[in-house]
């Protein structure tokens, strides 16, 4: 009820702003229309409603909604029709339906509710829908046409067909036709079944199922066929949705793992604090938004370079202070960096808060892209997917086309030879580690848009990240991309019948078994070089 | 673990002293037989239609430029690398391609690596102890005890390889040459029928080299020995028969003089050396 109330208020607020409606109350035709409705005997209520609709008055929607919600009353003394804003308690808060002006409270004894019966209430929805079909905004028209599906009755057919004549927008026309077809299927029209056979709207399916159960055998047979076709289409759509979620989850895995693919895969350094570098990136986004209140979008965009820098700096500190002393001792590196991860987590808990922080999603990233009735893709995931691909492409470019990439590959393949050729191996180590760490920071920026930002954020991704890198084949960026995307998709495919936790367990066990079958991952490096 | 089993074990005491009853069937001639072996790594043909036969008791030297496939060939014989095609037989009974490294080792093929590989955290004595030809399954190893005859055997080998004074030192402190000797000593402890020796004299002094030559020559006859070596002087000093590998297949075979006069060999190998 409160939604209707606020809608009503909103509508009136809009009307109030518009100077065209600041008419003299006495000359306002609305008064007469409302009085007519309030005083009509039950048999003439329909006519009274129709005359309100036909009046084209922009306030009509508000009035009729209030009427449907039992919030239209008449003051017994004056006969004035008012809107009831709050009907709790003894005294009701009322407002003038013509101006929206609050008229204060009045005892409910002095008010007389404008009666409505259930038949009228049922029609009212359809009538309201038709009202919106005249709106200027085609999106509003389409939405209202969609609402009409399954609600069309004999009385609406004629006005809808009239609407169809004048409607120019194809999408809106399709909706109206579908709405009419649903009605006609109910009436036993065989051709209407054809019109519905492509529709994914649940109401269309409901109408067809109804027809299948009905006692018209020809119609039932045809409807069954149409339903089967729809089911087929639905399956495709749900497959597409699973794929989308899978790719989205995969892109998160790729983002989390790709930095590791550089530090672990290329440099051979086991960095268990990688997850915490991701966390730092996410907190950078949060911090940026604190610095720029009210501009979440700008803050997010600035967070991309900032997150990279913060994580890269942290990475350099870790490399210089610990990892460089543990060269060639991978297991010790693992332990030491794990210690660093504990310190970083606790640092965030102590300095910021042990609680999760909320990162605002900017407007242009929220909402979803509606493909059809059964499929809509959330925008934030799409951005993250695109971001992951861009980061991947960027890294590929750096490794393949730049001097740094060449030096990194040289140092990892033969350190001594590279040094003797004048490559400063230490500098390459630092830069590579900074690059891998910076990418972890980028992953954090992206993750802040999908999950809660808290001290444990990184911990949740570290095992997954290692799994992705190892599964894809160490030292192979393409392998990481494919492994990440495919693991994400496999996980999503399993989820419907196994549940989220079990799906994760199955994927982990799968990787554990896979590594034992192919210890070098999907795309191993071959030949003599790989032995060393 | 029971006392009874301890006693029951006693009848295996002299097993060590009995001549090794090799399961290898050499009645039909060669002890090692490679036919049409091919291996490629990422398209690079490391071994190309290799055919090689080693007779029982023979001492064979294998030479060839870098990348000729010498080490890969040893990897194939010892089960480390599986060839793409071809067959490898030990005697006429054992198909080596069907076995893994420990099985091949237990069969009596010992191998010395190019880079000396010893157990650096164990003493010289312990290194030899582990190499000894005994039951190498888990539980017998757990319950193994040092018998006097084992100790004698190890001391004997220590004497042979000249590391007697270092017996209780960690192998990690040995010099490069000493490690080479220790590794050869470990091969001797294994009592193999066939020894594959990869560059035994690298990092050795002139005298050490001489002793190594002496040792390897003395082994021949009882055991078959295959030596891969770069040092031509050393090869000349021990070789009876030399095989030249080039690009993964046999280029020439014969006595050192025959081989060194072969124009093909001079072209690809000795020519470059000179």
């Amino acid at each position: 009820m409160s939604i209707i109330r606020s809608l009503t208020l909103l509508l009136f607020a809009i009307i109030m702003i518009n100077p065209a409606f600041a008419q003299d109350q006495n000359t306002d035709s609305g008064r007469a229309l409302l009085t007519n409705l309030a005083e009509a005997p039950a048999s003439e209520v329909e006519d009274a409603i129709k005359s309100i609709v036909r009046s084209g008055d922009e306030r009509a929607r508000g009035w009729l909604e209030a009427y449907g919600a039992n919030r239209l009353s008449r003051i017994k003394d004056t006969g004035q029709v008012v809107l009831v804003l709050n009907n709790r308690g003894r005294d009701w808060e009322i407002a003038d339906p013509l101006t929206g002006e609050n008229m204060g409270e009045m005892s409910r004894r002095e008010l007389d509710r404008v009666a409505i019966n259930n038949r009228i209430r049922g029609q009212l929805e359809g009538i309201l829908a038709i009202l919106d079909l005249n709106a200027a905004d085609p999106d509003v028209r389409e939405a209202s046409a969609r609402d009409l599906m399954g609600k069309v009755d004999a009385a609406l057919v004629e006005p809808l067909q009239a609407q169809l004549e004048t409607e120019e927008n194809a999408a809106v026309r399709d909706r109206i036709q579908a709405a009419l077809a649903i009605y006609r299927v109910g009436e036993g029209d065989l051709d209407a079944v054809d019109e519905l056979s492509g529709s994914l709207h649940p109401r269309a399916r409901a109408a067809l199922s109804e027809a299948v159960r009905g006692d018209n055998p020809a119609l039932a047979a045809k409807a069954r066929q149409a339903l089967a076709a729809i089911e087929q289409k639905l399956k495709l759509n749900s497959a597409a949705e699973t794929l989308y979620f899978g790719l989205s989850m995969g892109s998160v895995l790729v983002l989390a793992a790709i930095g590791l693919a550089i530090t672990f895969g290329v440099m051979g350094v086991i960095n268990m604090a990688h997850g915490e570098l991701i966390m730092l990136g996410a907190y950078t986004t949060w911090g940026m938004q604190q610095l720029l209140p009210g501009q979440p979008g700008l803050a997010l965009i600035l967070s991309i370079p900032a997150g990279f820098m913060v994580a890269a700096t942290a990475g350099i500190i870790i490399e210089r202070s610990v990892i460089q002393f543990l060269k060639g001792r991978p297991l010790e590196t693992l332990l030491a960096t794990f210690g660093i991860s504990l310190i970083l987590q606790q640092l965030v808990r102590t300095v910021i808060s042990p609680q999760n922080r909320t990162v605002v999603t900017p407007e242009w990233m929220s909402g979803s892209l509606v493909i059809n009735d059964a499929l809509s893709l959330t925008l934030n995931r799409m951005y993250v997917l695109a971001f992951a691909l861009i980061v991947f492409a960027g890294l590929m470019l750096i490794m393949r086309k730049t001097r740094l990439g060449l030096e990194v590959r040289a140092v990892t393949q033969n350190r001594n030879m590279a040094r003797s050729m004048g490559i400063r191996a230490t500098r390459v180590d630092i830069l590579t580690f900074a690059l891998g760490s910076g990418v972890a920071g980028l992953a954090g920026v992206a993750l802040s848009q999908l999950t809660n930002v808290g001290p444990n954020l990184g911990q949740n991704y570290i095992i997954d990240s290692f799994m992705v890198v190892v599964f894809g084949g160490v030292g192979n960026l393409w392998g990481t991309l494919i492994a990440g995307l495919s693991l994400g998709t496999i996980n999503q495919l399993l989820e419907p019948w196994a549940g989220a936790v079990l799906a994760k367990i199955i994927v982990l066990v799968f990787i554990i078994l896979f590594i034992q079958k192919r210890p070098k991952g999907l795309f191993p490096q071959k030949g003599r070089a790989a032995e060393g | 673990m029971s006392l009874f089993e301890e006693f029951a074990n006693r009848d295996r005491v002299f097993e060590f002293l009995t001549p090794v009853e090799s399961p290898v069937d050499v009645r039909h001639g060669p002890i090692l037989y490679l036919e049409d072996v091919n291996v490629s790594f990422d398209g690079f043909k490391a071994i190309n239609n290799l055919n090689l036969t080693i007779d029982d008791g023979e001492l064979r030297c294998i030479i060839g430029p870098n990348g000729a496939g010498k080490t890969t060939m040893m990897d194939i014989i010892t089960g480390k690398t599986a060839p793409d095609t071809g067959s490898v037989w030990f005697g006429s009974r054992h198909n080596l391609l069907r076995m893994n490294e420990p099985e091949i080792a237990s069969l009596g093929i010992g191998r010395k690596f190019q880079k000396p590989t010893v157990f650096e955290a164990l003493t010289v004595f312990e290194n030899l102890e582990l190499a000894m030809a005994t039951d190498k399954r888990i539980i017998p190893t757990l319950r193994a005890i040092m018998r006097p005859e084992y100790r004698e055997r190890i001391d004997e080998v220590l004497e042979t390889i000249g590391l007697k004074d270092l017996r209780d030192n960690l192998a990690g402190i040995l010099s490069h040459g000493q490690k080479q000797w220790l590794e050869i000593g470990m091969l001797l402890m294994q009592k193999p029928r066939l020894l594959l020796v990869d560059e035994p004299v690298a990092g050795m002094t002139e005298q050490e080299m001489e002793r190594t030559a002496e040792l390897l020559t003395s082994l021949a006859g009882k055991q078959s020995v295959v030596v891969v070596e770069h040092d031509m002087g050393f090869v000349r000093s021990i070789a009876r028969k030399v095989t030249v590998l080039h690009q993964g297949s046999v280029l020439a075979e014969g006595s050192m003089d025959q081989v060194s006069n072969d124009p093909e060999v001079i072209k690809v190998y000795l020519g470059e050396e000179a």
Partner: protein
Amino acid sequence: MWLTRPLRERSTQLFLGVLFAALAVVTLLHLTMPEDSPFYVSSFTVTLMGKYLCYALLAVAVDLVWGYLGILSLGHGAFFALGGYAMGMYLMRQIGDRGTYGDPILPDFMVFLNWQELPWFWHGFDMAWFAFLMVILAPGLLALVFGFLAFRSRVTGVYLSIITQALTFALMLAFFRNEMGFGGNNGLTDFRDLLGFNLRTDATRLGLFIASGIALAIGYLICRGIVTSKLGRVSVACRDAEARARFLGYRVERVQLFVFVVSAMIAGVAGALYVPQVGIINPSEFSPIFSIEIVVWVALGGRATLYGAVIGAILVNYAKTVFTGVMPDAWLFLLGGLFVLVTVFLPRGIAGLLASRRKKQDEPTDTDSDTGKEATA
């Protein structure tokens, strides 16, 4: 015999001497001192020390595989927890109809979940012998299957560490699920008695403490027996030069599997003794951080020494008790710092510091005592 051989070493004699002396002193102080005496050891402290002893046993198990076999297991917590769960299931069944819901067969959480009958894997746990067998078999079996697959495909080094971590993580997720039938999130708790002894009495607690000490002694002896045997030297050989060991005819993967399984079983026993003392077992014991913490105990104490693992486990856990009490925030900083400092500055741990002076004289004597065996054998 391999198991009794270590008894003739000085280091083992010293270790066992100190351990039993400590057990005796704590027992005496607990029993004879009046409660207001400064020397009185409270029941709470006895249980706390019992807990440390279980951790020490677990650390010894980890040191066996990490120190002597070079396998850094980041999943030993899983074996510990499995042993703990086996014990927990027995204790659960011992509650009988004294639970909140009074069901004679079903544990409380199953009644709560509306289960009608006991899942098949809960059968038999009402019998102590079966449960105690499972304490060893369940972790042993997991280690056998996992190790068989891993070692056969020669997964070693960092890869193995990562997949052991994934293993314990997967198990943690699994045990968190109610459907698994192990009490989900809450785990198993509310235990009453063990072998008829009430777990809440001081005498039982003291008994468990002593049992933990004896288990540590036996576990230490088994590990020491293995590492001083020829198999121990083969393990070191596999650790340092796997290929060489293989070409000498040793089945490296079997050596690894054997030692790994033994280690997992010891960890299971440690878990089983731990559970009745802390009174609960839940999936957090499977968490990867716990497993990796065990490794740092060993690293601090000194890898490949066994007694170092014991020292490390007790030291770190004592520090944990102190710090989480006094300033809980500082503990993770300290633990994290410990990881870094030990690996960078103290690679051989405390035992390394202690032994570095004696090492030169000790090593030959060790060999002598081994090889001197022949006279008595």
